[in-house]
């Protein structure tokens, strides 16, 4: 087990813990650079992973670090996407102006939600953000002049500073660049006083306030930053899906972002990325196993005779082709994660790493959660 002996305050907030960690990230970055050469057929899916990671990071700042649960983040990505397409196509502005406009407008709408949200806590806040998202979705549907209404709005290919970035491969690198910028910015914010104030608010509002953290300022800041990042993701998302329609930005989309944050692991940027990988690749996995699973089941039961094998094959095939199965699988995974691994994929990774680094001294109690039965948010 490596132990980093800290000798200065600077070391405490350094971006990388030590040289090993820095080199690992550099290796990962180089691997991502050559990835399109290795798996060219999955480049489109991976750029979606990058966009979702950006969304995950955005929601992680708000929910994982500041402790404000938002059920309305689909509205922010929607605003970002529509503003970007409107400014860059309908007004014919340069690409970068479109992205900047998307970020600014979304951040402003984040402040708009954040301000009344300051006085609310817990479930009231989630419902308020949910209400906001539902209203915004209706606005997308009705404001024909800007959003194209129910007919939708087509997005064109990216042309950045005269360089076309429309091909899958170039778009991959664009998304990667945006994700790296977003991660770097967020990591820097989180190790600054702002980030520490956010974490303090998450852990105890009263304690944070008594240490001099201005709740109003920092909560609004968290909302604005999270929304702005979402707007940036929205600009990329508009290109990725190519066609914007109001029903994309539904409550289910917001819940998908929350799923990402929870499954990845609350309170870590790694978690946001892991969760995004999971959420973006699970549908791919499900659609592939739809064809594979009945065949396997059929083969397995063919041991009991050919008829049994065929019967099982057709039964399983009919079951997995049900249209309603996929959301159910998502829901079930969410339930299982909350019950058995509340720290998410990242938490599991930390546990596995610790197990090997302190072998054979690992003990379960290290990660045991504290339960508090008297935690009440109401007076009576």
């Amino acid at each position, binding site marked *: 087990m490596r132990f980093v002996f800290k000798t200065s305050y600077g070391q405490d907030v350094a971006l990388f813990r030590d040289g090993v960690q820095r080199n690992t990230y550099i290796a990962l970055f180089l691997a991502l650079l050559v990835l399109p050469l290795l798996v060219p057929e999955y480049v489109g899916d991976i750029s979606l992973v990058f966009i979702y990671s950006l969304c995950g990071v955005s929601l992680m700042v708000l*929910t994982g670090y500041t402790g404000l*649960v938002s059920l309305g983040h689909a509205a922010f990505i929607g605003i970002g996407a529509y503003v970007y397409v409107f400014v860059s196509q309908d007004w014919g502005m340069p690409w970068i102006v479109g992205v900047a406009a998307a970020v600014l407008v979304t951040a402003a709408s984040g402040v708009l939600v954040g301000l*009344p949200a300051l*006085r*609310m*806590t*817990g*479930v*009231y806040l*989630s*419902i*308020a953000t*949910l*209400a*906001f998202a*539902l*209203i915004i979705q*209706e606005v997308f*549907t*009705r404001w024909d002049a800007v959003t194209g209404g129910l007919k939708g709005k087509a997005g064109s290919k990216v042309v950045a500073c005269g360089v076309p970035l429309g091909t899958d491969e170039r778009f991959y690198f664009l998304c990667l660049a945006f994700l790296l910028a977003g991660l770097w910015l967020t990591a820097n914010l989180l190790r600054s006083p702002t980030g520490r104030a956010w974490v303090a608010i998450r852990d*105890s*509002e*009263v*304690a944070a306030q008594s240490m001099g953290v201005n709740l109003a300022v920092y909560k609004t800041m968290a909302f604005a930053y999270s929304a702005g990042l979402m707007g940036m993701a929205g600009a990329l998302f508009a290109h990725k899906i190519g066609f914007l329609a109001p029903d994309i930005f539904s*409550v289910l989309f917001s*819940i998908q972002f*929350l*799923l990402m944050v*929870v499954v990845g692991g*609350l309170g870590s940027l790694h978690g946001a990325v892991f969760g995004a990988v999971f959420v973006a690749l699970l549908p791919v996995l499900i659609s592939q196993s739809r064809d594979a699973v009945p065949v396997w089941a059929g083969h397995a039961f063919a041991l009991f005779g050919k008829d049994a094998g065929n019967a099982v094959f057709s039964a399983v095939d009919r*079951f997995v082709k*049900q*249209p*309603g*199965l*996929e*959301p*159910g*699988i*998502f*829901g*079930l*995974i*969410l*339930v299982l994660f*909350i*019950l058995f691994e*509340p720290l998410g994929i990242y938490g599991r990774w930390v546990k596995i790493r610790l197990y090997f680094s302190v072998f054979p001294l690992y003990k379960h109690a290290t990660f045991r*959660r504290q*339960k*508090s*039965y*008297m*935690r*009440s*948010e*109401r*007076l*009576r």
Partner: protein
Amino acid sequence: MDTILQLVLNGLAVGCIYGLVALGFVLIYKTTELVNFAQGDLLMLGAFTCYMFVVWYGVGYWLAFALAVVVVALFGAALDATVLRRVIGQPQFAVVMLTIGLGATFRSFASITWGSEIYTLPTPFSARQTMVGKVSVSHEYVAIIVGTVLLCAALYTFFTYTKVGVAMQATSQNQLAAYYMGIPVKRMFSLIWAISAGVAAVAGVLLAPVSLIDVNLGFIGLKAFAAAVLGGFGSILGALIGGLTIGLIEMFAGTYLPQGFKDVAAYVVLLVVLAVRPQGMFGTVGRKKV
């Protein structure tokens, strides 16, 4: 004037449904401090179970109604005993996500079991109406309002006059003290889940003839959530009044405001109320003690 009376009647009927679902939220929240986002999906399960008994097995409407309520109530109790009891004492966020996940699983289950088409539930009072003056009173709406009033009266009697009901009130006021007094808190939790799932099933069966049954019926829970929050989460009376308010607002907005406002008017009002009074109309939220 007649239009207004008509709107009030329809609004009250829709509001009663919102109120009933909101009541389910509040009962669970008051007792167990869990926020149940799957309440709307329990409503959907109730409607589908009743439909299954009536149409598939040819059971009479009233018997099917009772069976549906019992089945869903038992399901609610089982849900508490197997899943939700494990997350008591964990952060509220975890519970919200858990119940959202459960809701998605229920929807998936329903679409696999009953199919994803849209069904109508035949009832003794389907598509019949009486004219009172110039107001047409649909029997389905009367059934909803009467059902809600009866259910609320029954619940009120239960919580005020029976031993178990009083024990439940004690549990909701202070879990630990109730435990010391010899109240079986775990059993109370299962019971409250059963009651609130049963209430959701009643709402589902009453709603079924008005709005058709499909897998996404549960999304009415979102509006009921707005109702519960509007009334102040944790106040039973508030939940009902919140539900009625939202039902009325929706009806009037649908008639007098431009198209598109019907669905969002409730949320706009909710945001305004929350901005002015963050604890809802009847809520009591204090600062958490350190």
